[in-house]
């Protein structure tokens, strides 16, 4: 592997549209870890909404689109456990009736990573640019945790953020109720789940709630905003990179 690996940033559709600062944070962290980062096109979406809706055709169409764009890179990195989970664990499950594509998909899947675990496990990152004096708590998003084993890595890097105090919440591994389209198909159950999650987060006394998946973050921040609660919500990459110019998710930019 070259000293300075070429990394394709798979920015994910939600980060692209809702929270570009997470993408910038990811780029800065990857560069700090000695990577050359590019944004190959076309890349729209990993196909998760289609895949989890049972629509394999669309999932495969989307994969056919981004696989050639990503293939030339040493690594593909996504700032999301669930999108990286699709790329790394499920890409190779596609194309059952198309061996050529299956081979390409499988080969690519092995080089796909979730951002924080990539930084720690592959690049050996131990120090981070971010500093933040705050009491924070961290939610383990499900796909990252269970499909990719993202658990110790974010904690390790958060411990390197000077000033930051991490307080573990009870049941940090319990789903927040997002689940992609689940949250709009079953809003009642989803709401109960996110309320339980937020109760656990609140009990830590943390002022900032972090996670590594924007879907979960939008869900938790959206619920907090609806209830008029003050806890701030951010993607873990923003804190690690020290990219905190944008207001927390669902909050307003301070006047002036």
């Amino acid at each position: 592997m070259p000293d300075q690996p070429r990394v394709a940033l798979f920015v994910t559709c939600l980060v692209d549209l809702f929270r570009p600062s997470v993408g910038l944070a990811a780029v800065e962290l990857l560069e700090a870890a000695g990577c050359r980062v590019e944004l190959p096109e076309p890349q729209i979406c990993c196909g998760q909404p289609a895949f989890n809706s049972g629509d394999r055709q669309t999932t495969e169409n989307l994969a056919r689109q981004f696989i050639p764009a990503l293939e030339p890179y040493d690594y593909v990195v996504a700032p999301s456990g669930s999108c990286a989970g699709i790329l790394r664990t499920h890409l190779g499950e596609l194309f059952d009736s198309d061996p050529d594509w299956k081979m390409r998909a499988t080969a690519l899947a092995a080089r796909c990573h979730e951002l924080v675990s990539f930084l720690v496990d592959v690049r050996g990152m131990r120090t981070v640019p971010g500093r933040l004096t705050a009491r924070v708590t961290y939610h383990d998003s499900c796909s990252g945790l269970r499909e990719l084993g993202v658990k110790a890595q974010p904690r390790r890097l958060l411990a390197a953020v000077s000033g930051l105090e991490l307080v573990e919440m009870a049941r940090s591994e319990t789903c927040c109720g997002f689940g992609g389209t689940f949250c709009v198909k079953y809003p009642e159950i989803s709401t109960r789940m996110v309320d339980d999650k937020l109760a656990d987060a609140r009990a830590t006394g943390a002022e900032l709630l972090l996670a590594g998946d924007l879907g979960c973050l939008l869900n938790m921040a959206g619920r907090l905003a609806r209830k008029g609660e003050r806890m701030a919500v951010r993607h873990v990459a923003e804190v690690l990179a020290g990219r905190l110019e944008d207001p927390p998710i669902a909050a307003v930019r301070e006047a002036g």
Partner: protein
Amino acid sequence: MEPQSLAFRERAAAALQDPHLATALRRLESGWQRGRARAAAALPEFEALRDAAVAIKDHVLENLDLYLEIFERRFTATGGVLHWARDAAEARAIALRICREAGARTVTKSKSMVAEEIGLNAFLEANGLTVVETDLGEYIVQLAGEVPSHLVGPAVHMTRERIAELFARHHGGPLKRDSAELVAEARRVLRRRYLEADVGITGANFLVAETGSIVTVTNEGNAELTQGLPRVHLCIASLEKVVPTVEDAFTLLRLLARSATGQEFSAYTTFLTGPRRRSERDGPEAMHLILLDNGRSAMVGGPFREMLRCIRCGACMNHCPVYLAAGGHAYGWVYVGPMGSVLTPQFAGIERTWTLPTASTFCGRCQEVCPVRIPLPKLMRLWREEAHRRRLPPPVARYGLAAWAFLAERPALYRFVTRLAVAGLGLLGRRHGRFSRLPLAGGWTVSRDLPAPSGTTFRALWKARARSRS
């Protein structure tokens, strides 16, 4: 039982309003969920045991006909009578015939999910028999005129207060508050019925090919009384319960209780090998076993084969946040929770149940705790694919997905449209940072605000960054 699964959302929404249910389900979380974690942590070889269990089950499924044949031979040699039932109707008819031939009026019954699967109680009762459930949870559910809401604890949805009211209503006497008193009362009522029964019906946790034995597991000892006191013992089990050896049964037993409740072993584990022999003083005069297929032999060769590894421990539901919010009755059929979302479409047809596999966030907790490592999310996704192929989800969902796919498959158009949308929403949401209402986002905004996009896409920022650097 007609599946009510299409109404999952409505049933779950109603259940969420029930504070009794919430209390009861929270107890499940703090009790059995923690229990499993403790038991797993206390046994160094727990993970290795899981691997061994998977290997045993997979081996059996690969050689199912062989082991069933051996089991049949050995079981028959012990004096048992084996009946093969292709489907639920056949199994019910055989069960009724056996009861009639025994001249039965009252039958006692210990817990059996297969009996629930084939709707045995209702059928026997419609044919004039009195069926008495002897498992405490099943007995409670039967008194209440309900169905089980959990594989292992049929009445986990009920609080002690509700059970006390139910007992006072049916047994008479003052309202009892204490659990021990309630159990004692149920025991008093049930003891009488054991002696009146002509046939005792049980399920089976395992069937051992090597010895022709039926293995039952309970915490109340009621399976032993159910099979041992009446003249006739009728066991109903499904094909995949067979295991090669006694040792294999023990491997699975060591996992079963730990995964289910966190106990090291259930209070009563019994190996029944044949009816009473001449030299013996107790046990039933006759032992019948109905072996039910009901689509399982077809499953062996299909994509849902791994589901047949299930040992009915209930861990998947004890750990499922959807189950713990909605309760078992929301699922609308016999099997509930994650394993039910895979099995119910199998038995009741995907048309009438396609909602169940969609009622999951795919958080993966079920697979994480399943002792036989069944990839439940993957199997639910397979059902979603089947439902998608048959166009079962409502048009709104399908057209929404199709519209999104149309855009996502056209990158240039997608970039153009999303840039505009993000700019517009960014502008609109600038004041508050979020939306409390937005057209087409009703499912989201009923209970959550939608965080507003910042106004530019990452792509645009990336391009600007590249320009400023060159």
